[in-house]
């Protein structure tokens, strides 16, 4: 059950497959199966894209609001503020990703230097 349960060369690989590969890729296979012959102009796809978009955003928010590792040492308002300002920069600069990333990262690093 645990990463170090078995002292064999192959167990960590099986562990990776069970803990991360299957629970990720099963959704990919389910998507390929469910889509069937649905037309690309179908109204169903608008709903599907809405859910996909909201899910990606929720995952992103998870990594900003509940981070692990070095990012967790930054205060929550700093993380959230840097993310939101970076994103707004991206939108107002007509989707300039470099600008959005640099502004977000600059705020994060500025907060670190100021602390």
């Amino acid at each position: 059950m645990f990463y170090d349960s078995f002292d064999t060369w192959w167990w960590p690989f099986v562990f990776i497959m069970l803990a991360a590969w299957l629970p990720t890729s099963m959704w990919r296979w389910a998507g390929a199966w469910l889509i069937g012959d649905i037309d690309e102009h179908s109204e169903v796809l608008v709903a599907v894209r809405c859910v996909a978009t909201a899910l990606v955003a929720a995952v992103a928010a998870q990594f900003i609001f509940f981070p692990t590792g070095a990012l967790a040492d930054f205060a929550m308002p700093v993380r959230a503020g840097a993310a939101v300002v970076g994103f707004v920069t991206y939108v107002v600069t007509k989707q300039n990703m470099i600008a959005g990333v640099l502004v977000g990262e600059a705020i994060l690093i500025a907060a670190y230097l100021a602390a």
Partner: protein
Amino acid sequence: MTFMSPADPPTVEDNGPIYDWSWFPRGMAKILSIPALILLSAFIGFGGLAREVGLPLEQVMFMVPLVWALPSHLLLVGGIVTGLPWPFIALTVMLAAIRMMPMVMALVPEIRAPRTKPWHLFAVSNMVAITPWVHTLAVASEIPRRGRLPYFMGFAATMMLATTSVAALVHQLAATFPPVLMAALYFLTPIYFTMATWKTTRVLAEKLALGLGFALGPLFALVVPQANILVAGFLGGAIAYGVHRWQKSRAV
């Protein structure tokens, strides 16, 4: 005259090869793009993290292209460090990876050719992750039908190879980063995901879905901490779609 369906007018594509593989190298070339470079930077962070927690090189090179989803990678490594049994890690990975299902469903109608077999789609679905998904959705309409799947494969396969190489290289160099740099690299993943997804939105409702998912996710963490991503995603998506229907009904 041959019969022409409205969805796939060019019936000439029904003859000859299923795919136009000349689009594969054109997909590969997209490794030189801003999103690809941002993702590669995020994998510098992942290589450093894997090294720090003591994962051996071969396991890093195994998990990067096989799992092929950075949030899943991070949850896996986090779970290993915490010493969780695999069913616990699998559950959190599963909840965070549900997005793959609607992502694949949105991509397939864009990239399939008239004679694409179901098993082609199952095979290709394993390469679906944010970066190739966003990029392919954005450019699909400019590519002939038979070239879209090869284009997607060319881009995704090159990204898989490049991210694996970067993570392995960082791991081998035993580069130790100051914590602030690790934090900055780690921070890249969520902000890049949000910006990249914004690019795929076509109607106002999808932009609304993005905002709702981002706001409801942390909010529901206070109520249903284990299932907040799931609830925020489906509820946010449903509200956004409801707004879309309401807009349409008013327009008529």
